C-alpha cells in the first residue's frame, strides 16, 4: 500500500508545480505529502518555487497599488 504511493523527486516537483496552478486531487496529495516529509531536496524546491511565485506576482501587484495613487488629480 505504502510503496504504491511512493513517487520520485521528479514526480514530486511536478505535483508541487501543479499545486501552484490548481488544487491537487486527493491521489496527488497522498503521494506528495509523505515524500515531502522525507525529502529535504523537494522541500527546498517547494520553498524556492514559492519565492519565485511571490516575486513575479509582486510585479503586477505594484501596478494595482500605484494605480490608485495615479488617479488622484
Amino acid at each position, binding site marked *: 500500500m505504502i510503496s504504491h504511493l511512493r513517487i520520485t523527486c521528479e514526480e514530486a*516537483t511536478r505535483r508541487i508545480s501543479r499545486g501552484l496552478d490548481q488544487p491537487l486531487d486527493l491521489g496527488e496529495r497522498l503521494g506528495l505529502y509523505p515524500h515531502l516529509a522525507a525529502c529535504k531536496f523537494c522541500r527546498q524546491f517547494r520553498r524556492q518555487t514559492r519565492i519565485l511565485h511571490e516575486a*513575479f506576482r509582486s510585479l503586477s501587484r505594484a501596478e494595482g497599488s500605484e494605480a490608485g495613487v*495615479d488617479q488622484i488629480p
Partner: protein
Amino acid sequence: MSASTDFETLLGEHRPWLLRQATWRLGAESSAADDVVQETLLAAWSSRDQLRGAPSRGWLAGILRHKVSDHWRRTPPPELEHRIDCAPEDFDATGHWIGLGPEWGSPEEILEAEGFWKVLELCSRILPVQMYRAFSLREIDDLSVPEICQTLGISESNCHVLLHRARLKLRGCVGSKWGAPVGASKP
C-alpha cells in the same frame, strides 16, 4: 496647453514604467518591449475619450497585456523549441535530485534585495520563448491554466509541462547566481 497635449504628457510619464512591465513579460523577447509599449500608448491615446480622468497604471497595464498577446500571436515560438521536451537536467535516471541547491535566504530578505531582482531578470531571459510566455501569464498576470492554453493555443498537459520546466530552470539559474553554498553559515 490643450487637453490632448495634457493627456499625451501624462502618457509619456508612464512610459518608463510600461517598458519595465513589458520587459518582465517578454523575457528573451524583451527587444520587442519598445514596440509593444508604443502600441500600448497609441491604443491608450485612441481610447482617451472613454477614460474619465488621468490614465492610471492599472488601465494602461490592461492595454499592455493585450498588446503583449498580440505580439505573441504575430510571433510564433521558434520551431526548435519543440525538441526541448527531454528530461530535466536536475534529476538522475531514477528521477531523484542530482544534488541539493544553494539556499537563497528568507523570502522577506531576498525580495528586498536589488541583486536578487537583477538575477531574476537575467534568468527570465534564458528561458525558452514559449516556456516563459506560459510562465509570465501564470505568475505575473495570474491567469489560470485554461486561460493560458487559450492565449497560447496549447493543451493543458503541455502547459503544465512548460510551467514545471520553467520553475526548474529558473530555480536552477537563480541558485547558480544568487544562493549561498550549502552549509554556509548565515550572518
